[in-house]
């Protein structure tokens, strides 16, 4: 095998792993944002955005 093969494969592997990582972070973010929007739409907001009397529950963050 020529040196070009090893160089091309090295850059391809690097690009593939980096793109998978970027894609995973992006898709994960999009899915979470959609879930939050759905919860908001169904009237389930954050505790801090609810009336004072309903603040007995505790959760993080």
């Amino acid at each position, binding site marked *: 095998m020529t040196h070009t093969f*090893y160089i091309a494969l*090295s850059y391809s592997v*690097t690009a593939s792993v980096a793109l998978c990582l970027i894609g995973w972070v992006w898709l994960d973010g999009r899915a979470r944002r959609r*879930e939050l929007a759905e*919860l908001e739409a169904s009237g*389930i907001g954050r*505790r801090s955005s609810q009336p004072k009397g309903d603040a007995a529950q505790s*959760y993080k963050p």
Partner: protein
Amino acid sequence: MTESLAITKLSDLANPTRFLALAARILPWMAAVTASLFAIGLYLSFATEGDYQQGQTVRIMYVHVPAAWLSMMCYSVMALSAIGTLVWRHPLADVSHKAAAPLGAAFTLIALATGSLWGRPMWGTWWVWDARLTSVFVLFLMYLGLIALNRAMDDPSKAARVSAVLILVGFVNIPIIKFSVDWWNTLHQPASVIRLDGPTIDGEFLWPLLVMAIAFTLLFFTLHIAAMRNEIWRRRVAAQRRLAARAAGREA
């Protein structure tokens, strides 16, 4: 004065909502700078001369070395976050080390794969169980172990504490990786960039390497901040669902 300012800034970021606002502001800029640096780095990587001994394969160094550097830096970031979890109980510290583990695993995988692809034409072998290669492989396994541990436990705060202890114990591997080439006989060359007496590498190779190293580092921080933001959102979704379930239970 400077220290108190730094502590104040760190405390400000303990508020996840403030962190999310900051992330939304800086992420597009970080992504743009990262992409620009990769464009310059990749151009330099292929525009510069080959090595007189290694020929064109020296170009593998421009992806291998930054990935290897990041594999160790990511673990160091995780170790700092682990201290933040155990000592300061910073609310974002466990989010930070949980989000960094898959990134560290990916960069270590790149370092191992490109090292192997560089080793075959230069050393005549894909792999040897010598000190440097084996210690980096152990680092890769540790990343996988930490990801598995975090996913195996339902309670995020308990998972964070257990992971933090394991991260700090595993940190002993980082100096072993760094100095393995000095302490033992290995096929891997000793350090040629970060040395007390300055880099021994020619400027022709040093510049593309530095630009690519900065680009990889910025890519890591961009992805780390984005992954932390995702983790905060994930916890908010879980918390809101719990809250909704309790409210439904009270009504029933």
